[in-house]
């Protein structure tokens, strides 16, 4: 399900803007706080991982549409997927991208059965849809992988999420390197892979994104001066968590997503 191998890669048309708010008007969270948000959501408020993931995937696909100039039809998007729940969110986005008319190639960093439970769940749906899915090291030669990445109108980075630490290793690190070499525009899910969400320091290798869709609340490291060259435009996406949950952590968010469920954070770039 990829377009003609010889098709030239066109530069994307101008992106479509999302409602914007000053980053300084929104509370940011550390990795530990975000882990607590996730925990409270699941164990105290009964919001399941798949519920949150569905919204993350849907918003990520929508940001890809904005960044590609407003229409997903016949655009070629490669979704790079890591083994954890960030990757599973990328798989949910792949489904939305396909539903909305994009050509999608899913490239997994690890064999399918090594993914998280939610990842296997998302992948099973994509397989039932006959989506094009493969594993980077085993199902594509290096040349094929370089060719696929090079032809993408846009690459989605759903390799590692806010929980990862240190330099991306093994297959994930190799994919990060090849994505960088491709020179194609990248949109990252939650955090650009390789960027420390607490400090904003970039590991080597790290993804350099044109945009990052961070979920629920911005991670504190994404707002620092060092991070903006890696995150690109920073979007904040609503995953449906109630204000009373944040209040338990002493965070007052108010009707944050009143202007829209995807906000562009100003003052970060």
């Amino acid at each position, binding site marked *: 399900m990829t377009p003609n191998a010889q098709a030239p890669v066109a530069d994307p048309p101008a992106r479509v803007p999302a409602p914007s708010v000053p980053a300084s008007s929104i509370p940011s969270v550390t990795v530990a706080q975000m882990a607590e948000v*996730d925990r409270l959501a*699941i164990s105290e408020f009964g919001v399941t991982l798949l519920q949150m993931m569905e919204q993350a995937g849907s918003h990520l696909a929508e940001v890809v549409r904005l960044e590609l100039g407003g229409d997903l039809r016949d655009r070629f998007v490669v979704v790079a997927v890591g083994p954890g729940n960030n990757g599973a969110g990328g798989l949910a986005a792949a489904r939305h991208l396909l539903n909305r008319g994009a050509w999608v190639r899913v490239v997994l960093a690890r*064999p*399918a059965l090594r993914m998280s439970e939610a990842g296997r769940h998302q992948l099973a749906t994509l397989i039932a849809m006959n989506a094009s899915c493969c594993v980077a090291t*085993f*199902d594509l030669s290096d040349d094929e992988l370089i060719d696929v990445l090079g032809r993408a109108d846009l690459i989605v980075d759903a390799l590692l999420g806010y929980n990862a630490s240190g330099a991306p290793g093994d*297959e994930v690190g*190799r994919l990060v390197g090849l994505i960088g070499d491709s020179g194609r525009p990248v949109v990252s899910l939650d955090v650009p892979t390789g960027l420390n969400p607490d400090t904003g320091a970039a590991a080597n290798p790290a993804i350099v994104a044109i945009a990052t869709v961070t979920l629920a609340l911005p991670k504190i490291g994404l707002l620092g001066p060092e991070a903006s060259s890696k995150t690109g435009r920073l979007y904040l996406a609503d995953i449906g968590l109630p204000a009373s949950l944040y209040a338990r952590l002493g965070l007052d968010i108010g009707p944050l997503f009143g202007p829209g469920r995807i906000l562009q954070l100003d003052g970060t770039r």
Partner: protein
Amino acid sequence: MTHDGYQRSLSEKLGLLSELALFEGLSDADIEAIGHATTMTHCKRGQQILAPDDPPDRIHIIKKGRVRVYRLGADGKQLTLDIYEKGTILGDMSMLGQDRIPEAYAEALDDGVICTITPDELRKLIERFPLIGVNIIGHLSRRLQSAEQALEAMAYRRVDQRLARRLLDLAARFGMAAPGGTVIEARLTQQELAEMVGTTRETLAHTLGDLRRDGLLDMDKHRVLIRDAERLAELADG
């Protein structure tokens, strides 16, 4: 890239151990005799070992080398499902409660050796070495028991209770005496442990933190030290 980069999930590690226990208690000479009584195939890298239309009811035990299991997409392209190593049993045999992954192909990633057993051969082996039959009964009853316990735990138990029970089970299988308690000698990621307990990594990390603060256990990156097995058991049963 080497296979060492992969962390085998714990359920696989456990599966592997119990599957290998098929020949437990047999002498080396017996195991060698079994090797002769079954079909040993030396396969080349890239050689196909399993296909969806293979006759059912035979298992393949990987004796040497790695095997890649994959399926074909509608576009005819391969999707790698997993990489298996020495000791893994592939294929299906209802007698062993072993199911095949649907629509899966398997091929050798390295030059390797595969031991194939049909139900008939297994029956003959059991007649000759009754201990194998005893081992199979043990294997099946453990599987049944743990499946029943897992179902009950999922339905009625809190995360901390499920975790406590799981850690005690792991300690019983992989535990080694260490200063201050019992250390579980299985390199487990928090993701793997979370999946076993049926929760998220975040909830797991939080629950582990609570148990540590209460002095029940200690942990570093991949290992858990059980400090107070008695209180952990009280929690699990509570």
